[in-house]
């Protein structure tokens, strides 16, 4: 399976839509803010925004993507998403995602996938969790205060992974 070696998180992340300081303080607000940011950057169509936001919230209601250790990975597969895309949001105050460990979430990695490519979706999730697994990566992400710093961390993690 070459995908996990070849796939870079930096290729998946839409850098302009990364939000280093989320304004929203609740789960649904954070999801909407990140989807708005993806629409503002042109990564998704403006007119699909509401549909995708609702689908992501519905998915989240079926089971929390707060995996613990301060990270959540809200995601959705939907037919109006043409190309897999991800973004990252950082909350300085912490958000309640009803996480497995009940702890607040500070780093949110959102993944939007086309409905027709479950294998690609699993490969992207593998990549995201391989990085989030590392305590240093989580800590630095939580401390990164600018969009540039977050994007740079992701690129560095890619380089580390492929060394």
């Amino acid at each position, binding site marked *: 399976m070459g995908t996990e070696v070849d796939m870079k998180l930096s290729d998946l992340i839409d850098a302009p839509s990364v939000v280093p300081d989320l304004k929203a303080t609740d789960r649904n607000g954070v999801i909407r803010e990140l989807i708005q940011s993806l629409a503002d950057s042109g990564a998704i169509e403006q007119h699909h925004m509401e549909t995708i936001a609702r689908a992501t919230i519905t998915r989240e209601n079926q*089971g929390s993507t707060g*995996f613990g250790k301060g990270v959540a*990975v809200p995601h959705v597969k939907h037919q109006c998403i043409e190309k897999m895309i991800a973004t990252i949001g950082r909350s300085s105050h912490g958000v309640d995602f009803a996480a497995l460990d009940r702890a607040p979430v500070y780093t949110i990695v959102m993944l939007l996938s086309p409905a027709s490519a479950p294998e690609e979706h*699993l*490969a992207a999730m*593998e990549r*995201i*969790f391989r990085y989030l697994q590392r305590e240093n990566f989580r800590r630095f992400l939580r401390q990164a205060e600018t969009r540039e710093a977050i994007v740079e961390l992701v690129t560095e993690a890619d380089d580390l992974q492929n060394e």
Partner: protein
Amino acid sequence: MSDATTEAVRDATVPNREGLHARPVMRFVDLASKYKSTVAVTNVSCDKEKVDGKSAMQMMLLEATQGSVLRIEACGEDADEAVRALAALVNAGFNMMDTSQRPG
């Protein structure tokens, strides 16, 4: 205590069209966590590393697509029950229904 410790292993195939994605992982981890035994899982189909069956983050690394064979190993006093129940959960498609339909 040590004489009550057993090891057990069982293989199961992921039937879900969406593969082993986040929700089935959560169901697996929920069930695995009910047992005292340690639980380890390998994706035999793509030769990935062995992960902790009680860690949702680690289970996401298996990248198990539809048809992947998971090897479930347990070690502890309830190892037999653990692998039996976990293999049954996998074979039943995690009771998720996406073996026949795809959620919107």
